């Protein structure tokens, strides 16, 4: 074929290929070591989840992988062992975290827009006040919250969990989206105003679609943070609003034997929803980092 002429010869570099030098070899080696080091806990967890009860505590490596631990976690047998239905806990977590993220977006997007667009005396203080919820350890506020929740009947309710998770998700959403709205050229909304649209419609029609990648990124991060939260559901919830993070730890055994292999299997199952979510909206995440503005 005539096109063969354009085939690169061996000495030419293909796009994405780079010349091998001592420096890059050393750098790659360093990265591999770091990679192994950081991935090791996950590898360990996966191996542990596939081991049976005898293998999990041996001092030498004994490994006959099976999926039975996963089945146990999700079965009635698992429920009997921990007195918590893991499937229900998963669903509760989804409701709690999904609810928390939705509330944070509904309230946080307009808040972030206002914070990004209108500067007034003390607007930065207000933003830091919101962030300060994240400065203090959760344990510091948990005791008063526990008392309050008991008194107003929010203890062990999903509404209560969604509410308290706002402390985790709202600052994240507002802070991430504020910078997106700040980067958005004001000209665009002003153009919409002059086209005859109200401020609200200009916001919905112009600003929102452009920051959609940012919203996806903020929502995902908020969801992961809410999903991983342990202290709030541990203290403020029980069987009705108890989340998967608490359910996992039940396999470590409050009363009897600690099932490390079941714990590992439960942890892997619990990690799936955020992982799936992240992969689904990956496209937006990448775009979120580099969205074009007004001029080329």
């Amino acid at each position, binding site marked *: 074929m005539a096109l063969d002429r354009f085939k690169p010869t061996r000495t030419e570099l293909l796009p994405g290929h780079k010349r091998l030098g001592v420096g890059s070899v050393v750098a790659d080696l360093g990265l591999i070591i770091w990679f192994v080091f950081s991935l090791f806990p996950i590898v360990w967890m996966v191996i542990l989840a596939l081991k049976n009860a005898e293998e999990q505590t041996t001092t030498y490596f004994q490994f006959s992988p099976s999926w039975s631990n996963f089945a146990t976690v999700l079965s009635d047998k698992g429920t009997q062992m921990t007195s918590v239905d893991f499937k229900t806990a998963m669903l509760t977590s989804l409701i709690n975290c999904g609810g928390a993220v939705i509330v944070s977006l509904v309230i946080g997007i307009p808040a972030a827009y206002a914070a990004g667009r209108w500067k007034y005396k003390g607007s930065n203080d207000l933003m830091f006040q919101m962030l300060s919820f994240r400065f203090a350890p959760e344990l510091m506020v948990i005791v008063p919250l526990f008392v309050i929740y008991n008194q107003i009947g929010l203890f062990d309710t999903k509404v209560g969990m969604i509410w308290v998770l706002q402390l985790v998700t709202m600052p994240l959403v507002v802070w991430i989206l504020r910078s997106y709205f700040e980067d958005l050229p004001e*000209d665009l909304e*002003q153009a919409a*105003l002059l086209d005859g649209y*109200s401020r609200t*419609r200009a916001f919905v029609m112009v600003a929102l679609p452009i920051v959609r990648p940012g919203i996806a990124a903020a929502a995902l991060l908020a969801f992961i943070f809410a999903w991983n939260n342990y202290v709030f559901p541990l203290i403020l919830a029980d069987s009705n609003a108890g989340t998967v993070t608490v359910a996992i730890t039940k396999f470590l055994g409050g009363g009897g034997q600690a099932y490390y292999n079941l714990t590992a299997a439960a942890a892997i199952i619990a990690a799936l929803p955020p992982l799936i979510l992240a992969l689904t909206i990956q496209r937006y995440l990448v775009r979120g980092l580099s969205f074009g503005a*007004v001029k080329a």
Partner: protein
Amino acid sequence: MATVTLKGLSKSYGKTQAVRDLSVDIEDGEFFVILGPSGAGKTTTLKSVAGLVDVDGGSVTIGGKDVTLVEPYHRNVAMAFESYALYPQKTVSDNLASPLKSGRTGKYTDAQQKERIDQVTTTLGINHLLNRFPRELSNGQRQRVALGRVLVRPADVYLLDEPLSHLDAKLRAAMRAELKQLGAMSKTTTVYVTHDYQEALALGDRIAVLRDGALVQIGTPEDIWRRPADTFVARALGQPEINLLDGEVEDGRIRLGGGAFDVPVPAGVDVRGGDRVRVGLRPCDIHVVGDQAAGSGPRLTGTVVLAERLGRNIELTVDVGGEQVIVLSSGREGVDEGGQVSMTVAEHDIHVFAAGEGDTSRLGADHDTGRTRGGVEEVETAQ
């Protein structure tokens, strides 16, 4: 169609005063140009008319109605932004339809919308781009779309903010000519902001020159060019810049270059012997003449220090009695670096300004400079 009146308009951003006490009357259907360097408050003025900035003081009246506190979407003005401000997620056709769909610029059926868009895209030569996104357009095309979004609907006032500034020189000249020929523009009151004096002179029915947020001069292009209110306006117009020479009045003539040469005091300029003045001579008003030719005006003689060919003209730097004077010559006189030249200036092309550093005002009473002078003095005291 409407008149636009700005009265005592002021706006500050923190400590920077963007517009100070600006008062302008724009007539119905006028093409009004606001000219000034960057940071002069041109865009702030324009956005005040649009209602996009909250003014600190003064009022904006459109069509006889005070709209100072009226929201932008109730003002019925259309604006083209310097940044184009095209909606990136919408196609060209949706961008153009946007003002027609809001319901505040009139009700249009789908067919009427299509017809209007068709009409404006045909005029601007962009009807092959309708299904493209702004990111797929060149700057010139984006410019046209932004202009199209203004022209697609009837408005009381069109506001254009540096609409040609991002185009290359050739395209800019072409678009300038097109703008002038657009029918809609000639019927609707238009406020046009630019820093390019050529655009201002070519397009404007009247020009307002701004500096540091204050009005320096307002008038027809002819006024501004022939009778600049001060050295700032004189320098802002014309490329190369006007020559400003210090001189002293003596026996009805102004001695320049330490007495090496002189020009007559133009009629209507009230100066007395001994007064120090500044004389402005535009490079294009200084004519190179042959040795024997009898010029009518004063005769200057000097040595050519530098000759640069700029296409049609040659820009000469001439040493006249120790002063460097820039002269535009057609090149037919056969002058060369190191050679001697004789030059004449017509008396009415001699601009006389007050002596001093910085921007000084014009001397002479040929023009209503009352408000102008006030503005200038205010700036000087503020500095």
